[in-house]
C-alpha cells in the first residue's frame, strides 16, 4: 500500500513535468517583447560589474563556485575539500595538509550549504562557511582572498548534512549529522541500530577576530537522521532548529521504512542554555581524533593539528535545552523568517508547509504542554506550536527563503516550481515553474535578518533540454527570477558547476572593495621563500634537492640547474616576485607525478619532482604572463645516481 502511494507521487511529479514543459514552450513563442525587457534586466554590459556575488556549493565537486548576479557569469571556482590541479591546491606541499583527516588524506568531498558570516543578524562579508558532507568537515573561506583558510573535521558525525549554518553574530557554525552512527564508533550489528545509534549535533565556535574554529560541544541526540538546520534569529536568537527524518530509526530501505511516521520532528535546541551548562563545567569529555587544518596567509602554508578530545553533552542532562516539534512527513529544510518568529518545516513528502510559531513554542514550554517524550526529550503538541499551514497545491516542498517584505518563497521538488506565499496569512500569492525539479532556492541575504529581496535563484537537480546537449552528463541548471514585483518573473537561465545544493549571495559593494589584489612580498613569511633574486639557490640535503627559485616576467631564477641525480627528490620552492594585480605565474615540470602550480604575486608554493631517468628536462611557466611568456623556461640536468657532478645553477650564464 505504501509502495503504491510513492509510485503515485512520482506519477504526479511526471505529470507536472509534462505540464511545465508545455508552459515553457508556450512562453518561448508568445512573449518576444517581454523577453527583450527581461534581457535588459540581466544584461551586464561589457566592463560593467554585477550587483551581487553568489557563492554556490559544488556538491560532489567538493568546492565552492563564485557567480555574478544577475548575469549568471562564473568568476571563480574556490577549491575547498577537493584537490584542484588548476592551482595545485591539495597537491602543493603547502596545501596538502588542508585535506588531512583522521582517515588520512581525503582528496574529495561533497560540499553542500554555504553561509556567509553575520553580525547582528546581517551579512558582514568576512567569511563564508561550507560543509563537507561525506567526510564530515567544515571549511571557512576568507572573503578577502577568496581562498579556503581553515578546515575542521567533525568527529562522531557521518553525512555532515544539517550544516553549515551560522548563528546571527557568527558565534557558532553548526554541523549536524545526517546518518546516526555508533558513538564512539565500534563494531556492532547494523540490526541493533534502534536505540544504540546516535546523532551528533556539533556547535563549532568561531573566533570573532580571526575566525578560527573550535568544537565547543557536541549534543548527542537520538538516532534519527538530522537533515537540515537553521539558527533562530532576532527574537529566537539563542535557539537552533534541526529537521529530522527516520524517527522510525530504521536501518534498511529507508525510502519506505523511514516514511512511515505521519510526523517527524523539528528539534529545537536552546544553545545558549547548553553553552551556559558547558561554561559551568557541564558535559563529558570524550576521546576523539579529528583534524584541524589552518592555512596561514603569511607563510602561505597550511598546518594540521590532530585533536584528541571532544566535549559531548547529553541533552537529557540539561533541562529545557531541547524540545521536539512534531512536523509532518520527513521535513527537509527548516527555515526561520527574518523576524525569528516563524519556523517553517518543509515536509518533503507532503503537499503542505507547516509553520511553527516561536512565541507559541515558548508558551507551550512554559505551560509544560507535552505530548510524551522521545528518549527523554519532551515532545510539544503539534496544535500548540502550529502557527499555520500553507496549502500550497505543490508537491515536495524542500526549502524556503524570505524577501524581507513579509513574503516567503518555497521550492517544490516534485512539482518543479517555486511558490510565493505570505507570512501570517499563509496565502499563496504566485507560483512559477522551474526547469526542472528545484532543490534549494536562494535570495541574497535570504538567510539573515535583512534579505536583499530582488532576485530568487532556483538551483535545479535536472537539466534535460535546457541547454545544448553535452552527452549523457550535463551541468545542473539554475534559474533567476526577478522578485521585485508582485509576481515573480523568470528572467534568466544558466548552468552551474557540480551540483549546487545551496548558495549564499551578498551585495557586490560589500566584498569587491576589500578583495585582495596581491600578496605582499615583504610580508611573505614562507620559510622557503626567496624575497630577492640574489637569494635564489640550490641546496642538497642527502637525496633531497631544494631549489629556492624566484619568478618574474619573464624568467625563472635560476633557470638552469645541474647536479641532480636519478633517485633524488627535487623540491621546487617558487616565489612569484610580481607585485602587480593579476600577474600569476605557473609552473610545470615534464613527467611530474603531481599537478603543476599557479602562484599568485608575492606567494610561494612548492612542488615535488622525482626524476626517474638521466637527461636534460625542461620546465616552464604555464600561465601566459607576458609577451615573453614562451621564453619563460628552464632545464634540469639529471645525471645517473652514481654521477659525481656537483650542484650548479645559473641565470643567463652568470
Amino acid at each position, binding site marked *: 500500500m505504501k509502495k503504491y502511494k510513492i509510485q503515485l507521487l512520482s506519477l504526479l511529479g511526471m505529470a507536472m513535468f509534462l505540464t511545465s514543459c508545455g508552459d515553457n514552450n508556450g512562453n518561448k513563442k508568445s512573449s518576444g517583447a517581454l523577453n527583450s525587457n527581461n534581457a535588459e534586466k540581466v544584461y551586464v554590459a561589457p566592463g560593467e560589474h554585477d550587483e551581487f556575488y553568489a557563492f554556490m556549493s559544488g556538491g560532489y565537486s567538493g568546492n565552492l563556485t563564485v557567480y555574478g548576479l544577475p548575469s549568471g557569469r562564473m568568476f571563480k571556482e574556490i577549491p575547498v575539500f577537493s584537490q584542484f590541479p588548476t592551482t595545485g591546491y591539495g597537491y602543493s606541499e603547502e596545501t596538502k595538509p588542508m585535506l588531512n583527516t583522521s582517515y588520512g588524506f581525503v582528496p574529495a568531498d561533497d560540499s553542500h550549504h554555504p553561509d556567509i558570516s553575520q553580525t547582528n543578524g546581517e551579512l558582514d562579508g568576512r567569511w563564508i562557511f561550507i560543509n563537507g558532507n561525506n567526510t564530515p568537515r567544515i571549511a571557512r573561506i576568507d572573503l578577502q582572498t577568496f581562498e579556503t583558510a581553515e578546515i575542521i573535521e567533525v568527529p562522531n558525525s557521518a553525512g555532515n548534512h544539517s550544516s553549515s549554518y551560522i548563528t546571527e553574530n557568527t558565534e557558532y557554525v553548526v554541523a549536524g549529522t545526517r546518518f546516526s552512527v555508533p558513538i564512539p564508533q565500534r563494531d556492532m550489528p547494523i540490526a541493533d541500530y534502534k536505540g544504540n545509534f546516535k546523532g551528533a549535533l556539533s556547535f563549532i565556535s568561531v573566533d570573532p577576530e580571526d575566525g578560527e574554529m573550535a568544537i565547543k560541544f557536541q549534543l548527542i541526540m537520538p538516532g534519527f537522521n538530522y537533515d537540515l538546520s537553521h539558527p533562530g534569529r532576532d527574537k529566537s536568537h539563542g535557539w537552533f532548529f534541526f529537521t529530522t527524518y527516520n524517527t522510525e530509526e530504521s536501518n534498511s530501505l529507508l525510502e519506505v521504512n523511514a516514511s512511515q511516521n505521519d510526523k517527524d520532528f523539528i528539534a529545537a535546541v536552546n544553545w545558549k542554555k547548553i553553552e551556559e551548562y558547558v561554561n559551568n563545567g557541564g558535559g563529558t569529555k570524550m576521546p576523539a581524533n579529528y583534524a584541524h587544518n589552518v592555512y596561514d596567509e603569511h607563510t602561505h602554508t597550511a598546518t594540521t593539528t590532530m585533536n584528541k578530545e571532544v566535549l559531548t553533552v547529553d541533552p537529557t542532562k540539561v533541562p529545557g535545552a531541547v524540545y521536539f516539534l512534531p512536523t509532518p512527513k520527513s521535513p527537509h529544510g527548516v527555515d526561520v523568517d527574518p523576524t525569528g518568529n516563524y519556523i517553517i518545516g518543509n515536509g518533503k513528502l507532503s503537499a503542505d508547509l507547516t509553520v511553527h510559531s516561536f512565541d507559541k513554542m515558548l508558551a507551550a514550554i512554559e505551560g509544560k504542554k507535552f505530548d510524551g517524550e522521545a528518549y527523554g526529550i519532551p515532545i510539544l503538541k503539534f496544535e500548540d506550536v502550529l502557527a499555520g499551514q500553507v496549502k500550497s497545491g505543490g508537491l515536495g516542498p524542500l526549502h524556503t527563503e524570505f524577501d524581507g517584505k513579509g513574503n516567503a518563497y518555497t521550492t517544490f521538488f516534485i512539482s518543479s516550481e517555486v511558490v510565493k506565499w505570505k507570512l501570517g496569512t499563509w496565502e499563496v500569492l504566485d507560483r512559477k515553474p522551474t526547469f526542472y525539479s528545484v532543490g534549494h532556492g536562494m535570495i541574497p541575504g535570504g538567510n539573515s535578518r535583512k534579505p536583499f529581496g530582488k532576485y530568487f535563484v532556483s538551483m535545479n537537480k535536472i537539466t534535460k533540454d535546457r541547454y545544448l546537449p553535452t552527452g549523457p552528463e550535463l551541468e545542473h541548471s539554475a534559474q533567476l527570477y526577478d522578485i521585485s514585483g508582485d509576481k515573480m518573473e523568470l528572467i534568466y537561465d544558466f548552468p552551474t558547476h557540480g551540483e549546487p545544493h545551496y548558495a549564499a549571495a551578498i551585495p557586490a559593494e560589500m566584498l569587491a572593495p576589500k578583495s585582495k589584489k596581491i600578496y605582499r612580498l615583504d610580508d611573505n613569511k614562507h620559510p622557503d621563500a626567496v624575497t630577492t633574486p640574489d637569494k635564489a639557490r640550490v641546496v642538497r640535503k642527502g637525496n633531497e634537492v631544494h631549489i629556492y627559485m624566484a619568478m618574474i616576467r619573464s624568467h625563472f631564477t635560476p633557470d638552469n640547474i645541474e647536479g641532480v641525480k636519478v633517485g633524488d627528490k627535487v623540491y621546487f620552492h617558487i616565489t612569484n616576485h*610580481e607585485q602587480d594585480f593579476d600577474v600569476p605565474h605557473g609552473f610545470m615540470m615534464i613527467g611530474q607525478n603531481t599537478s603543476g602550480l599557479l602562484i599568485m604575486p608575492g606567494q610561494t608554493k612548492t612542488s615535488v619532482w622525482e626524476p626517474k631517468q638521466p637527461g636534460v628536462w625542461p620546465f616552464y611557466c604555464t600561465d601566459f604572463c607576458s609577451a*615573453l611568456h614562451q621564453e619563460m623556461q628552464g632545464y634540469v640536468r639529471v645525471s645517473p645516481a652514481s654521477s659525481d657532478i656537483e650542484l650548479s645553477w645559473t641565470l643567463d650564464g652568470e
Partner: protein
Amino acid sequence: MKNNSEITIIFNFITMKKASILMILGALLLTGLFVFPLWNIMLGAPQYPEPLGMNIYIDGIKGMNEFDIKNIDGLNHYIGMKTIPKPEDMWEFSVFPVVIGTMAAVGFIIGLLGFFGKVSYHWFLGWLIVMTILGILGMYDFNAWMTDYGTNLDPHAIMKMANPDGTPMSYKPPLLGHQKMLNFDAYSYPRLGGYLMGAGMFLTLIAYFVGKRSKKNN
C-alpha cells in the same frame, strides 16, 4: 568687464602693505612643494585599466600606488629603459629642495621688508624673474633627464622598436600633455605642488602690479 574707473578706484585703496602680503603669500605657496608633488606622469594601457602613475616631488619620485614604480620598471625592462631613479641617484633631488626653500624664504623676507617699507615693489619683480629663470632651468633639466631616460636604452633590450624611418623609437614621456607610446598612453601634467607654485608666482606678479599702482597713486 567692469569699467576702468571702478577698477582704478579699487586699486587706489590698495596700499603697498597689501601688495607685500600678497608677496608673502605667494612665496609661502612654494612650500607646498615639500608636501605635494610637482608633476605627475600617468601610463595607461589596455592591460592597465587602472593606470600606473608616478608623482614627481622635488626630493624624489613616488608611485601613485605602492608598487607602481616597481611595475613601471618591470615593464620598462622589456624596452631597455633604465630603472626610475631613486633620490640618491640624481643630484636634483637634493638640490631642488634647497633652491625652493631658499626662494620661499627670500620671497618671504622681501615681502616682510616691503610691508615695513624697507624695500620697493621692484624687489617683487626681481624675485619673480629669478624664480622664473630657475623654473625654466628646472624644466630644461627635467626634459633632458626624460630624453636620456627615454632614448638612452640598453643595447641588449628585449624589444628594439623602430620608427617608420628606421630610427630607434624614443620612449621619452611628453614634457606636458599626452603621447601614445606603443600600447601605452602617457599623460604628463603638473600636480598640486606645481599648481601651488604657479599660483604663488602669479600672486607675486599681482603683488608687483599692486605695489606699482599704489606707488603711482601716492
